[in-house]
Structures are given as C-alpha cells and as structure tokens.
C-alpha cells in the first residue's frame, strides 16, 4: 500500500512538470501586457513601462523565465504579483478562507441533497418521487449559475429585500451575530452552487444505485431476510458509491479553485475572482500559481480517490 502511494507520487512529478511547462508557455505566449494600464496614462512615459518590464524580467527569453520560476517554486517562492506588488502565496492565502467556506458549504449541501434523493429515487424507480426528482434535476443542471445567481438576487435582494447580494469579509458584530450574518450572506451563493451541483450528482447517484440494486447478491441479501434499510445502506450503497467517490474527489480541487462566475456575481473575494481579475490584468505570476496549485490538487485528489477504492471495495488491490 505505502509502496503504491510512493510510486504514484513519483509518477506525479513528471506529469506536474509537464503541466507547468504547458501552462507557462501558454501564459507567456498569450497576448496582453501586465503594464498595459500605464500605456493610456499620459502621465507615464513609455520608458517607465520598459523599466518595469525589465525589472520583472519580462524581456528575458521564455525558457530562462521558466527556469527562474521553477527554481523559485522549488524553494517555496510562489512568485511576486506584478499588479499588487506582493507575494503570490500571501495573496492566495488571503482568498482561501472565503472560497473554502462558500464552495465547501455548497459541496456539502450538494451531497446532502444528492445522496438521499438519489438513493431513495433508485429504490423506487419510475415512482412519482423519482419522476419529480428527475425533472427537478434536469431543470437544475440546465440552468447556468450566472442565470440562477442573478435571478436569486432579483428575487431575494431586490424584490423581497431579505438577503444582501454583496459578500463582505468585514462583518460588524461578534459572537453569534457574526455567525448569523456570515450564514445570511452565504445563503444565496451556496444555494446557487449547491443546487447546481446537486442536480447532476443526484442523477449520478441514482444511476449508480440502479446498476447495483439489480445484482444477484442484493437479492440474496434480501432472501436472507435482511431489512430494506440494511440491504440498501450496507450492501447496495457501499458498492454504488465507488463511482460517486471518483466524481466527488475530482470535484474537490474545484472547492479550492473557487467558482469564477458565482464569485464574480456575489463579489466573493475567493480564488476564482482572484484568478479572473489576474487574467484580465495579465498578472501572469498569480495566474500561473493559481492554475498550478489547481493542477497539483487534481493529481492529489485522484490519488486519494484511488486509495479510497481499496477501502470501499477490498477486491481492488493496489500494487
């Protein structure tokens, strides 16, 4: 087992290197200039822009810049933001709590809805409950989050005036008041993201359950005289969850990566909004760091998913 994990880690190194090369080259070749805002400011002479480019090493050839970046990254230096003139890791750490809170809550909400609904629908396929759940799921994943987000704002903020639509990290009040306000402002973004995720996940859980529920060993379990609840939870669900775990594991990096559109609509200062504003202002070190961390997380969670398989189904051996 530990050997397997070690081997997987070693395999991950070249793939991460490959990813970083691709990311770096694409970003370096992309159009735009981090100091473009200076160009339209008549106060700033072009020499300043040239000096800044030289200072941040933007005029060096790409391979040299990549080696610099790699070397710094190995020493734990994530780079220096052109736009904010501060260290990138600091910038990312500042944004992480909001993203973890909002996106994490949304994922939990999605799981809390998808698993019970999916399982129950699968035990009674084509019943009224199943039909309704299916219809709602289709509606849910057909509506993009930017649409539901704006709809929620129109209904709950503007018409009803119940919830704020600007997320703030600066909440007044302490103790229980702070907690309540924190929950209040997260309701809309969490609902928008959570319901969207829940919709597709419900469909997934349902079909995974249906695949297993018809197998012979389930009939055997029933024939033994086990109760319905026990059969579903201990025998069916455990096996049906394997593909679901993969899906969830692959979505975990998104929890750290943030949700670009939703964060923008609700002004949540998360990683997603950092990424989009950095892309728009051509702040390549930040874009590079965020996307690379994202790549690392995908690799890591894939590994975690593989390890989890072994636990869920002892027949899968890891060598």
């Amino acid at each position, binding site marked *: 087992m530990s050997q397997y994990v070690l081997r997987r880690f070693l395999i991950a190194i070249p793939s991460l290197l490959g990813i970083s090369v691709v990311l770096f080259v694409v970003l370096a070749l992309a*159009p735009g200039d981090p100091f473009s805002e200076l160009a339209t400011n008549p106060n700033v002479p072009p020499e300043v822009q040239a*000096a800044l480019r030289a200072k941040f090493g933007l005029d060096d050839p790409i391979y040299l810049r990549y080696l610099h970046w790699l070397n710094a990254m190995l020493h734990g230096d994530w780079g220096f933001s052109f736009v*904010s003139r501060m260290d990138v890791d600091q910038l990312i750490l500042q944004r992480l709590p909001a993203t973890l809170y909002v996106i994490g809550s949304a994922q939990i909400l999605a799981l809390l809805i998808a698993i019970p609904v999916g399982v129950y629908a699968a035990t009674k396929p084509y019943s009224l409950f199943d039909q309704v759940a299916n219809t709602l799921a289709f509606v849910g994943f057909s509506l993009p989050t930017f649409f539901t987000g704006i709809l929620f704002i129109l209904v709950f903020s503007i018409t009803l005036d119940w919830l704020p639509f600007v997320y*703030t990290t600066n909440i007044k009040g302490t103790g229980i008041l702070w907690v309540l306000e924190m929950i209040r402002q997260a309701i809309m973004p969490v609902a928008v993201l959570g319901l969207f995720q829940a919709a597709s996940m419900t469909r997934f859980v349902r079909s995974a359950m249906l695949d297993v529920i018809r197998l012979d060993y389930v009939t055997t379990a029933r024939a033994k005289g086990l109760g319905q609840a026990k059969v579903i939870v201990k025998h069916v669900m455990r096996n049906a969850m394997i593909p679901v775990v993969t899906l969830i594991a692959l979505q975990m990096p998104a929890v750290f990566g943030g949700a670009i559109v939703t964060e923008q609509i609700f002004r949540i*200062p998360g990683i997603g909004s950092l990424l989009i504003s950095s892309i728009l202002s051509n702040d390549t070190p930040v874009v590079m760091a965020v996307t690379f961390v994202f790549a690392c997380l995908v690799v890591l969670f894939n590994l975690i998913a593989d390890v989890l398989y072994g636990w869920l189904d002892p027949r899968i051996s890891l060598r």
Partner: protein
Amino acid sequence: MLDKKLRSMIGDVKDGRMDRRAFIQRMAAVGLTAPLAYQILALGGVAMAEGPSTYKPTKRGGGGALKLLWWQGPTLLNPHFATGTKDQDGSRLFYEPLACWDPDGNMKLVLAAEIPSIQNGGLAADGKSVTWKLKPGVKWHDGKPFTADDVVFNWEYAKDPATAAVSIAVYRDITVEKVDDLTVRILFPKPTPFWADAFVGAAAGQIIPKHLFNDYKGAKSREAPNNLLPIGTGPYKFLEFKPGDLVRGELNPDYHMPNRPYFDTLEMKGGGDAVSAARAVIQTGEYDFGYNIQVEDDVLLRLEKGGKGKAVYAVGGDTEFIVLNSTDPNTEVDGERSSMKTKHPLFSDPAVRKALSMLVDRESVKKAIYGRAGRTTANFLNGPEKFVSKNNTWEFSIEKASKILDDAGWKPGADGIREKDGKKLKLLYQTSINGPRQKTQAIVKQACQKAGIDVELKSVVASVFFSSDVGNPDTYPKFYADMEMFQIPMSQPDPAQHMRRYISSNVATKENKWQGPNFTRWANKDYDAIIEAAEGEMDPVKRAALYIKANDLLIQEVVFIPVQHRLKVEAVANNLQCVISGWANETDNLFDWYREA
C-alpha cells in the same frame, strides 16, 4: 479682444473694484470660465483663492460607517506605484497631496498652508519656481511630524528610475529643495505655466513618509513593508487591506482639518461589475457610493425609481474620439504596417475626411448611449472651459457628406460603394470591447453605408487593445486599421500634456517599438510650432489662445472626429453629501464628505 478684456478684468480684481466671484461669472459670460480661472488670476498677480467649502458638520466623527463600492478594487496602496485610478483612489484614503482640485477646478489646500501666488512670493514671475508653505503641526498616523523633508524625499524617491515609480514623469525634470522645515521650493528647468503638477492631486501628488520609505528607495522599492501598510496624514487611518477585495480605515482623531472627518469608519469594497454596483447603491442601498458607473442611462433611470440613491455627474475633459489613420495600414514597408513612409490611400483626400466627420451622428450617440453622461462636441479639447474653442461646429448630414464625395469624384459603383481611380471606399474601424463603443460603431456604420462607404467593424479585448505588447498587431498604438475609437483621460485641469502627444516627433513607429504617444501618425509642422510656443508661454491668455489654435487645427484637418464629451458618473446614496471633481480622483475630496440627517 478677449485678451484685452481679460487683462482689464484682472486689473479690476487687483484693485478691488471687482470681487473674485464676479470675475469668474464674467469669465463665464465671455466663454472663458475655467477650473484654471484662479490660476489665471494667480499669474495675473492676484492670489489664487480657495473655492467655498460646503462642509457643514460641526464636530469630528459621529457619522457611522461610510461604505464605498469600487467595482474594480485597489490592488496596491503605494501611490507611486498606482498603475490605475483605482489604486490612486485607494491610496488617497490615507495619503494626501499638498493641494487638490475641487469640482470647479479650483485649488483646495490639503497639506499646504497657502496657495502660492506672486503676491505672497510663492510664484516666481518668470514661471521657473514655486514655493509651497506647509501646514504646521501635521502628524503622520504614527505620530511623527510631517515636514519639508518628507516632500523632498518624495521627489528623490519618484525620480529615481530604479524605483520604477509611475509618477516619474512628474518628478524627473524638476528640482525640489527644502527652504526650512515648513517650506519647499520647486525649480523648473524652463518657464512652467502650469506649476500645479508635482505634489498636487491624487494622480501624482500623494506624499509618502520619509521615515518609513527612506530605506526602500531605488531598486529595493518593492520590498518596503509599507507598500501594503499605508501610514499617511489623511482623515482616515489604515486598518486592513486585501488586494482587489477590501480596504478598511477608521477615523484619524488627530486630523489636521477642523471638524473632519465625519465618518467613524470607512470601507472600500472591490469586485463585481458596474451594473450591479449601481444596483447596490441606487436600488438596494447596501452601499453609499459606487464609482465610475459606466452604465447605460436607461438602466440608471430605471434604478433611480427605487429611490435610495441617484446618479451624480462631474464634468472633466474626457473626449471619446474617432481617429483617422494618416498612414496606410495595408501596405508593409520594412516590416511595418501603418508606416510613416506611406500615405493613407483614401484619407489623403481631405474630402473623404470631411465627409466622414459629417457621418458621425453625435446627437444620436448621446441619446441612444451616453444620455446624461455625455455632451455632443465639435472639439477635441473640451476642458477646462478656458481652452475650449468656440470656432468649430459639427453637423450630421448624409446628403451633404454624399455631395462632398460626389464633388470630389467618388462615384458609387455597381455594388453601391463609392470608388475613384479604382480605389473603393472601404474602411476598417476598430475599438475596444465595451458596450457603448460597439453601439457607437453600429451607428456610424449605418450612416456610412447610406453615404456609400463600406465600413467593417472590429473590436478588440481592452487588455490587448490598450497594451503595449510589441508582438500583438491589435493594439491601438500599432493602428493596423483605417480608423479607431477610444478616449485618453485628461488627468489634470490643463491641456499641456494632453496636446503634446500629437507633435510629429512623438509618432509611434517600429523604431520606437510603437511607444511614441502620437498614434494618429499625423505630422504637421504648424502644430509642432504651436505646441512649442504654448509650452513656453507665461501669459495665460495667449497660452489659452495657442491651445485653442492647436485644437482647431486637429479639427479642421479632421485628425480626430470627436464623438462625445464624456462626464464622470457616480452612484450616490440620497443622504450622502459627496464632493466629486471631474478633474480629480473620486476620493480626492473625501475629507469633505458627510451624511445629511
């Protein structure tokens, strides 16, 4: 004639026969009122006065929280590194200049004790120096006194190329010397009619403390811990900063202006887009103030029906224009398109230029797009008032444009497109991606089509269009199109910087990596001579006349087709009394903001 009248009026003010306000009103009557009116008086020998203050609160604090919404939040808080106005706005919450601009373009004192004038010895008669007296007793937020050393330090800091400050252009050619602890003198290399550039306004004037930045001058500038922790002299003390998201401050109990500031805490939230920012201020009232609300007027009018806030406008000098390429974008010479060695095949005929200027329906653009945020104009230079030409008019007429083209020999071909000598009137018209700009393009294209001109539209992402990326063909300085549209913001109430761009030695070429600011590629010896004369002219009236002449030349030769004189738009809560100047950043007059009960 204006020259004489103005001179006699200045005389009247000097002798006390006319008061200042009457002078400004008379100037308005003859079309010469100006943000620079007071500077005219100063140079004419009368002290520049502060505009009247509208600030009413009689005690410091007690105003609760002020919530500002900047849909592009500040990303750094050192004014000398502020790449965009958002960063200047954020820094200006904590740092201060010697003086700033009020809504009428009058100078308002901040850290200076008096406005320099010839009377008080502040201004040299030859225009080669200005002496500022500093307010005594001003303290930095950490308790250290503010002195002339700080002012001199800012000059040394900014002018050092290794610091890579964006304010370098303001400071590198001047010399700043300390006279005593509370007096500094700025020496100019040549007569400088507009002396209020260094240390004035939010754009380049904010002063940082010497004792915290002294060790971080030059190459080490980026390591200064205070780049992110501003310790200034301003009305609010710094609490917290998250780049792009939030800036927080609290009342400064030792602030140097009486009864100010009004608010106890201050928050500047970033992110989102302009429309939802307008909504959060005007419709739901979650925030008190939203900056730079570039939203269609229809939308604003609808939001205003909610009744929690309103749109507020400030007049400055920003002009949205179409520029006609003087060179040929389709012929490559020595690896360079739009080369100065070529001439534009169609625009070299003045008739085509003239016709095009008649095909831009400025009234419709105002009505359909800019609404209250725009004014139609015939001029390139639209402010300060003193510099605005009265000699030009504009009209929109497809018939007249067609006639001009007919007379010049451009006859419609079989496909309805005019042609002459085998050259068809087909034009490529580019701009940045931005709702109002695409709509303007459509309006112009339609009119051109009716007049037999085929216009192809192109829009480029703003981050590419405005970049200086040498490798990208779609930037505005490369100008690989027949015409392009955008605006260049005017950041101070004076045209010198703005008009200097278009002299012939500034043309953007491959040789200077397209960094020359004259993207029009128009070169004219008369224009060069006018600008040179204006820059050395100390007589304010003659100087204004020269800039008016320069503007008229740009318009007569149809280098530019002015589309709209654009105003600043802000979203403001109904009970907030804010002071906004079209000549300054939104936060430049923040110390005078308060809430009406």
